[in-house]
């Protein structure tokens, strides 16, 4: 099946109504071809939207409590890929070269002993170096673990802060310049901790950055500058300035690389609902 034929099948693939053979062919090409993968994802998004065509219904309140009770007893699947850095296996001490066989005469014995001593010293030096290297490696790993633990703690603290009673959020939509762009801003209205998650916003041109603005009345208060990756994504933590905590609305503009004190570039994201 050609790529074009598979592309034609993607709507039906996303709908889940293809035969087994056709499904497999689509899946193979989706894995291999990023453009096909992207197109399949768009069809899946379209089909997910169909859920909005159905009348919403409220499930029984007891269901939520039961769900939360059940997840306490349900272990989560382990990650597909472990982040634990594997330690290199230690070399076995028995691998230290043994001393050469000694001779029967004195000189021979003395020479042999000297050679053995040199070999032993050499081996001890190698072991000492190896030990130093392993200790350094161990220290680095401990440091990395400490940093990972710190960032995990920080991330958890941020989540708690944003999910707590002072958490606020806003959904930003792309302007006609970037109609598919989206952003979600979550922030704590008391301490200003914030998280900004952006999708489908093309990377800023060279020498430029995006900048977020907290707008109170007609006064834009400058926020952090950032850029997106090749996939148009960015997930950043930021601090809302004190005078931006009570902003009415938010916007993202394109600015010089290190940002501006007042917006100078075009608006790329704005709040559809404020």
């Amino acid at each position, binding site marked *: 099946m050609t790529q074009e034929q598979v592309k034609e099948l993607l709507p*039906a693939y996303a709908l889940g*109504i293809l035969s087994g053979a056709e499904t497999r062919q689509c899946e193979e090409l989706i894995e291999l071809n990023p453009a096909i993968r992207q197109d399949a994802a768009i069809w899946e998004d379209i089909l997910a939207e169909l859920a*909005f065509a159905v009348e919403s*219904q409220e499930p029984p309140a007891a269901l939520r409590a039961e769900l939360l009770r059940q997840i306490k007893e349900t272990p989560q*699947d382990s990650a597909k890929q472990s982040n634990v850095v594997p330690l290199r296996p230690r070399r076995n001490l028995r691998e230290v070269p043994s001393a050469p066989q000694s001779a029967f005469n004195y000189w021979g014995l003395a020479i042999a002993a000297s050679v053995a001593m040199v070999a032993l010293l050499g081996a001890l030096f190698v072991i000492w170096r190896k030990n130093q290297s392993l200790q350094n490696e161990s220290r680095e790993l401990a440091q990395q673990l400490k940093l990972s633990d710190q960032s995990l703690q920080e991330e958890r603290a941020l*989540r708690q802060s944003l999910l707590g009673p002072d958490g606020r959020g806003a959904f930003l939509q*792309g302007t006609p310049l970037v*109609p598919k762009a989206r952003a*979600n801003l979550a922030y704590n209205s008391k301490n200003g901790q914030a998280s900004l998650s952006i999708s489908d916003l093309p990377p800023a041109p060279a020498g430029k950055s995006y900048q977020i603005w907290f707008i109170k009345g007609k006064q834009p208060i400058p926020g952090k500058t950032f850029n997106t990756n090749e996939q148009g994504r960015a997930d950043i933590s930021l601090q809302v300035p004190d005078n931006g905590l009570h902003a009415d609305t938010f916007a993202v503009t394109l600015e010089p690389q290190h940002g501006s004190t007042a917006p100078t570039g075009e608006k790329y994201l704005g709040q559809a609902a404020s």
Partner: protein
Amino acid sequence: VSTRVNYKVAQNNDAFLLRAIAGGEEIALAELYDRYRLILFGLLVRILHSQSEAEDVLQEVFIQVWQRARDFDEARGKPFTWLVTLTRSRAIDRLRALGARERATHEATRNIPEIWSDAVTDAIRAERGRIVRKALLNLPEEQRRALFLAYFEGLSQSEIAARLSTPLGTVKTRVRSGLIKLRELLERQSEDLR
């Protein structure tokens, strides 16, 4: 559009919530549930035609989200799409297990509901619902019927052909044309709002 929406907690930041769920935070699962319970339960009732079955499956879906949140790859899709796909897939599996397709099929071809529940108070959800419903109403009736049988009943193209006494090739064309038109309409209407 300047609909006033006051988001309570990090609204719409689903990826953020999924990362928190993957980190074992139950409060994040509760938040995701609160955010989507109405639309997902509505979808389940529509597919399963049974409140009790829908309750079972909704619970299964969120337990699966809890277990598999780490598998979710933001680079490959949107959280909402993942959630709806998971929900629809489990609902159709349940439907098949129940052998309830025959009973439910006549419902699948019914028109789009005219009245929205009072529970639909979230402005974004209501707005998206309005856009999708409008787009669906703009599809030719035969395309919409084929699409609904596939989407809400999980019927294959051959089963739809048999159900509608229509040649398989015609069904394939209707489904594909319907989806292409739906995509165009949704994209156009979303752009009109900006």
